């Protein structure tokens, strides 16, 4: 216990935190059923414990990946814009701004299976079949040049597969490498001869300001993910960061009839869409098509956007985004277009859908 705290603390906590000795005698809760445990207990460990039966190779995986993952993670798992990169970055860990990917950084393939199986695709987690996950795992390893495209990954061999950085981790050693030197008596006087300012935050100027300031382009800035946004990115980033209020401005003039409170509420709901859809002046296609003037327009017709076959066909067949179709689609995208590329769980509340449709309707072409 001394690893976590000294003895006095433990004693103190024992007094405040421990509850009357009960030895499991409350009799609260009920036994969990095997089906319930099976439904929730999905975690997979490095030794392969927890893997479901199944298999897949990169050839199959590529198809699923292109369909369900590439919109954010790129065709070759190399990442789009600021979305996570899953491939590349080999031998960069000891350089400035290392690129940490499955190939360059992750210690275990089990983690990849576990995470995709449980949490991806973003917005439609827990919808993949085990074979699809094995296939995607193979495709991501293939994209990192770690296997050939016909190499089959299965519950039999996944745990034995060794990733390049498997040996690159060690258990927290602050106790031996830091605590002694950081526990010297604190200096109070004459602690140094001279003090000079060596760096100013205003040089980078990446602090979010007031709305009229426009958000700074983060040239050399580095975030939680560690990687500095690429030099080529500031343009897109600045655009994405443009305050929503500005984007909505031209629209408000056009539909004086619509309820402004509703439009404002819709603008808030639209934050859930903004990761994939841009609106307002100069909006470009991103993960999803730009949505200016989409209400009552034909489906799948925004120039330059690569729609799913089904969405494109719906447009050719003359289907339009009227109120009813928008409601169905936004409640559950797949209920209208079964194989749509839009991986979004849907807006459950009718009032959210009404609001976002009003907001979209307020945007001119």
């Amino acid at each position, binding site marked *: 216990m001394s690893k976590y705290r000294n003895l006095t603390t433990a004693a103190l906590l024992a007094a405040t935190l421990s509850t009357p000795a009960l030895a499991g005698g409350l009799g609260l809760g009920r036994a969990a059923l095997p089906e319930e445990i099976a439904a929730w*207990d999905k*975690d997979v460990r490095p030794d392969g414990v927890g893997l479901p039966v199944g298999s897949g190779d990169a050839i199959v995986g590529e198809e699923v990946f292109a369909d369900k993952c590439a919109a954010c993670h790129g065709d070759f798992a190399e990442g789009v814009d*600021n979305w996570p990169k899953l491939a590349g970055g080999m031998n960069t860990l000891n350089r400035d701004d290392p690129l940490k990917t499955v190939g360059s950084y992750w210690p275990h393939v089990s983690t990849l299976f576990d995470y995709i199986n449980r949490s991806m695709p973003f917005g439609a*987690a827990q919808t993949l079949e085990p074979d699809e996950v094995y296939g995607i795992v193979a495709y991501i390893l293939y994209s990192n040049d770690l296997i050939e495209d016909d190499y089959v990954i299965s519950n039999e061999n996944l745990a034995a597969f060794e990733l390049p950085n498997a040996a*690159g981790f060690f258990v927290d050693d602050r106790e031996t490498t830091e605590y002694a030197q950081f526990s010297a008596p604190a200096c109070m006087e004459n602690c140094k001869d001279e003090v000079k300012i060596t760096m100013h935050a205003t040089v980078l100027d990446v602090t979010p300001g*007031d709305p009229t300031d426009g958000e700074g382009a983060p040239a050399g800035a580095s975030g939680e993910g560690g990687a500095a946004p690429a030099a080529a990115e500031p343009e897109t980033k600045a655009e994405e960061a443009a305050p929503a209020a500005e984007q909505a401005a031209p629209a408000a003039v056009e539909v004086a009839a619509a309820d402004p409170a509703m439009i404002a509420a819709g603008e808030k709901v639209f934050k859930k869409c903004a*990761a994939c859809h841009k609106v307002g002046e100069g909006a470009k296609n991103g993960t999803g098509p730009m949505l200016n003037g989409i209400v009552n327009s034909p489906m799948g017709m925004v120039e330059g956007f690569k729609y799913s076959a089904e969405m494109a066909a719906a447009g050719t067949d003359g289907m339009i985004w009227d109120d009813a179709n928008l409601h169905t689609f936004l409640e559950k995208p797949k209920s209208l277009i079964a194989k749509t590329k839009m991986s979004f769980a849907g807006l459950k509340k009718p009032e959210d859908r009404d609001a976002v449709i009003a907001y979209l309707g307020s945007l001119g072409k």
Partner: protein
Amino acid sequence: MSNEPLNDKAMIGTTRRGFLAATAATGTALVANAASGATPDPLITEVQEWGSGLGDGVDANPYGLPIRFESDVVRRNVSWLTADVISSINFTPIHALDGTITPQGCAFERHHSGAIELSKDDYRLMINGLVDTPLVFTYADLERMPRVTRTFFLECAANTGMEWAGAQLNGSQFTHGMIHNMEYTGVTLRTLLEEAGVQPTATWLFVEGADASSNGRSIPMEKALDDCMIAFKANGEALRMEHGYPVRLVVPGWEGNLWVKWLRRMEATDAPVESREETSKYTDTMADGTSRKWTWVMDAKSVVTSPSPQMPITHGNGPLVITGLAWSGRGAITGVDVSMDGGKTWKPARLAAPGTEMALTRFYFDHNWQGEEMLLQSRATDSTGYVQPTKAQLREVRGENSVYHNNCIQTWWVKPNGEAENVEVS
């Protein structure tokens, strides 16, 4: 209304440009007017509207929010950090708060797949794995268990993580705002786990949330049984949705990512799961490219919250309150020192109350400011004798790429005009 300009000033005072404009326009005039006393103050000599008419009735706000003059005291995010706001983070406005308790409404949020709406009726908590009886609890079951109330800070391991390679963000909200401190009410994990009967071979506890990210993490059983708890109340009221309503995990002194929100399952195991959040993320890469894992505990740290870039000195020379926060995941704060010359000399600050284990401590330093330039720093010492290090000391051990666990001494350069900037010093 004469107090309006003051409010406007605060609103635009977050940027350098805004601050200068505001001082020029209203700041000095206001100070002169209030302080000089040469002409009678109409706020005193004339009957004011609020002193004559009537205010709002009792039910005007069944649940009250801060008065509109405080509308700038809000969470803010840094949009370029993440691709979207669903998997993202924002920051507590620590620069504008005082005391130690963080109001839930402005306590920072970090989600990996958005804040979900989960009702008490739909809530289930499962305990399985190496236990005598795998169990399922409803929310109502949890409310019938022996209860505890304790105050702890929660700090994201990435707090100050953007400052490793150099001074970057201008404001304590952005450099140190991934922290909050609340009084939690709930049930200890010991009570819960004893209900299920943990087997002797169970050395780890895997915990996960009900949201799409699940945010699974492995915690040593020793820690789980020692002082961890589940919380359903914070600061006396139900948790907010964004903090895991109806139930979250509390892991005192350890990094915020372990405090799983919307907690749905705890599995007793004999090995860590090594999930994405404990391999790809929340591991600290050293200069040589190898990485520390399981760096759970948050080391002692402090920051001056005011004056700071978002809180310039606007009152001119004379009495100045220098204040800030200190905390340690390894014990209680025993002292905080303040330096005004970039670390050449230090003086002890006054603690608002004696430090408590793994909770925020407020410190004050009363200073007679004569418009001198200051390189303002604070330095915390905790009950283990650990003294908050400089950034140079940390870099010497870890390099600049470790992203997480940056507990270095922060420097604000306060200029003669009262404006402050985030800087690094030699």
